[in-house]
């Protein structure tokens, strides 16, 4: 079973994770015209699905190897150390978010928005808010992905152990948990009210499915992936989702949406990873696997290099993206919100993400080559911290 694990990193994963990170950045800038290019406008699923699936895949790939070579204990500690890193990154972003909110609260008085300014109420009780933030229960806008990732990583050691021994059982367990979550409305409560925006009990399905694929079980799906029927169904579903999404954006088309269909499919529940979103993601994945083979020479092209580098430095790129989205919003409000500015900020943001990822990648490669107690491991520089 372990022999089936691909020994070389699949650059398609890095490419699409990098692209997903760019799209997440663009989507996080409010009222940004450039975000019209992102996939959430053309179907049910969005960049989050891509990110979570690929994160599961690479986590199984990287830590699966560690588990094989160094044993479950070492691999588990590595996973938990990674979770800790992500937690620190989340806390750092939270501080930036607090700074922005505090600034807006101190500098902005507009009678029109007296009500909205109540959002600053939580600054009055730093004791409660900070504690709830440390417990990951306070949920600032657009910062929900990292808490999900932390929980998924925390639960990952036993899951990975099971995937390596009984992969079908692990996947079945994920499906059962997903179904039970929908049946009994399980979720983690948030502060002050409500629940987590990304329900980990539901989203784990995508992560574990990614891990199952990454642990060498993907070949079981090859008959399906090769079937023209499956591809035809995937295309039909993507076209259907596209048609539905058109009715959201073009008001004159809204009445083409049959009422029975609207009642059947709405609301499309992002919090609990609606099955419509999951199928949409699978359909896109089927098409991508069909159109882009793993050994496609274009993956080595310098044109795709920027996205691949971002995908390989995903945590840093993600955090930087959230920070840059905050900053861009700030500039749009304070300086100018014109379309030219939106385009400029979007482009500059992606350039900065690429530049920082490239520097990190370069440093890692140089640092890894240095003679020292840690023997250089080929591939580790790509995969080391990046699960």
């Amino acid at each position, binding site marked *: 079973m372990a022999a089936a694990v691909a020994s070389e990193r699949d650059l398609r994963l890095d490419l699409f994770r990098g692209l997903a990170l760019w799209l997440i950045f663009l989507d*996080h800038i*409010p*009222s940004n015209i450039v975000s019209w290019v992102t996939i959430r406008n053309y179907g049910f699923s969005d960049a989050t699905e891509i990110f979570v699936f690929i994160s599961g895949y690479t986590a199984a790939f990287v830590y699966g190897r560690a588990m094989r070579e160094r044993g479950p204990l070492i691999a588990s500690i590595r996973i938990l150390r990674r979770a800790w890193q992500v937690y620190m990154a989340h806390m750092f972003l939270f501080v930036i978010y607090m700074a*922005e*909110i505090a600034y*807006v609260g101190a500098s*902005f*008085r*507009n*009678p*029109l*928005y*007296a*009500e*909205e*300014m*109540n*959002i600053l109420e939580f600054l009055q009780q730093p004791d409660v808010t900070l504690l709830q933030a440390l417990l990951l229960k306070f*949920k*600032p*806008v*657009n910062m929900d992905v990292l808490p999900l990732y932390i929980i998924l990583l925390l639960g990952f050691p036993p899951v990975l152990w099971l995937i390596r021994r009984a992969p079908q059982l692990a996947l079945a367990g994920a499906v059962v948990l997903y179904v039970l979550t929908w049946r009994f409305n399980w979720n983690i409560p*948030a502060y*002050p*009210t*409500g*629940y987590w*925006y990304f329900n980990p009990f539901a989203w784990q399905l995508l992560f574990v499915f990614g891990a199952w694929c990454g642990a060498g079980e993907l070949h079981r799906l090859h008959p399906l992936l090769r079937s023209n029927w499956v591809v035809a169904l995937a295309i039909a579903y993507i076209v259907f989702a596209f048609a539905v999404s058109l009715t959201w954006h073009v*008001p*004159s088309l809204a*009445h083409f949406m049959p*009422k029975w269909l*609207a*009642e059947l499919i*709405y*609301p499309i529940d*992002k*919090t609990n990873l609606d099955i419509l979103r999951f199928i949409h993601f699978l359909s896109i994945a089927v098409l991508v696997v069909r159109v882009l083979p793993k050994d496609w020479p274009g993956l080595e092209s310098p044109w795709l290099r920027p996205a691949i580098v971002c995908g390989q430095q995903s945590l840093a790129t993600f955090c930087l993206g959230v920070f840059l*989205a*905050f900053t861009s*919003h700030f500039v*749009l*409000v*304070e300086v100018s*919100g014109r379309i030219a500015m939106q385009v400029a900020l979007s482009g500059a943001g992606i350039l900065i993400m690429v530049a920082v990822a490239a520097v990190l990648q370069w440093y890692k490669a140089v640092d890894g080559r240095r003679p020292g107690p840690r023997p250089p491991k080929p591939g580790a520089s790509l995969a080391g911290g990046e699960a």
Partner: protein
Amino acid sequence: MRTVLLALAMSALAIAHAQAQTQAQPDVCEVPEYLTHVEGKFARVPTAVRKDHRLLVLVIGTGSSSLAGPEGARSAYPARLEAALASRLPQASVKVVTDVKGRRTAAEMAAAVAQLVRDEKPDLVIWQTGTVDAMRGVDPDEFRATLEKGVATARAAGADVVLMNMQYSPRTETMIADQAYADAMHSVAQQQDVPLFDRFSVMRHWSETGTFDLSGRDRSRIAEKVHDCLGKLLAELIVDTAQLDRNSSKDNR
């Protein structure tokens, strides 16, 4: 000589520009039709206006349905709505009463609806909500169920309903996640045939086209102008939905 000509040309331009601006003034509230076009039906309002020659509107809402200050009550959109409706419907006696208190979630307002409708006996309830729920992070599914319950309660008591969503607030856009709540309001409106006044999209349109600078540096009574426009557009929506103005309302806007 050349400088004089240049100066003349420039002042001519400036005057033309100023004129263009004053000419544009009467239409300042105008938004593309798709933003104010709504599906949805009224059962009570047409009869109230045509037969009983009255229209009593009750606005249930939170902070964004009011303006602070001594002139606040007169400049906030409920009062502007009353004025606009009165001029659009001379055949009826129009009155707008309000139940506006800050920081109320939809659930708190839904609980108050039954009593309010019984006391005031309005023909139409305008229910403004969404912002407080978004700030508190209320579960969107619960929010949706609450909307359905509130609409049903008001209708059972014989009143029509208009839903009104949140304001567009550029400064707090990265701090208040209102998309899920806006979506819930859209879908409840669609399923229950309730007209939705899409305040969010209307205000965003004003912000994007530069009609009003909503990012807060301009202090020249923007808030009052915005509320005046909201009142006018709301009046138009009510008249259109009730089909009280069959010879096209678009001409005499």
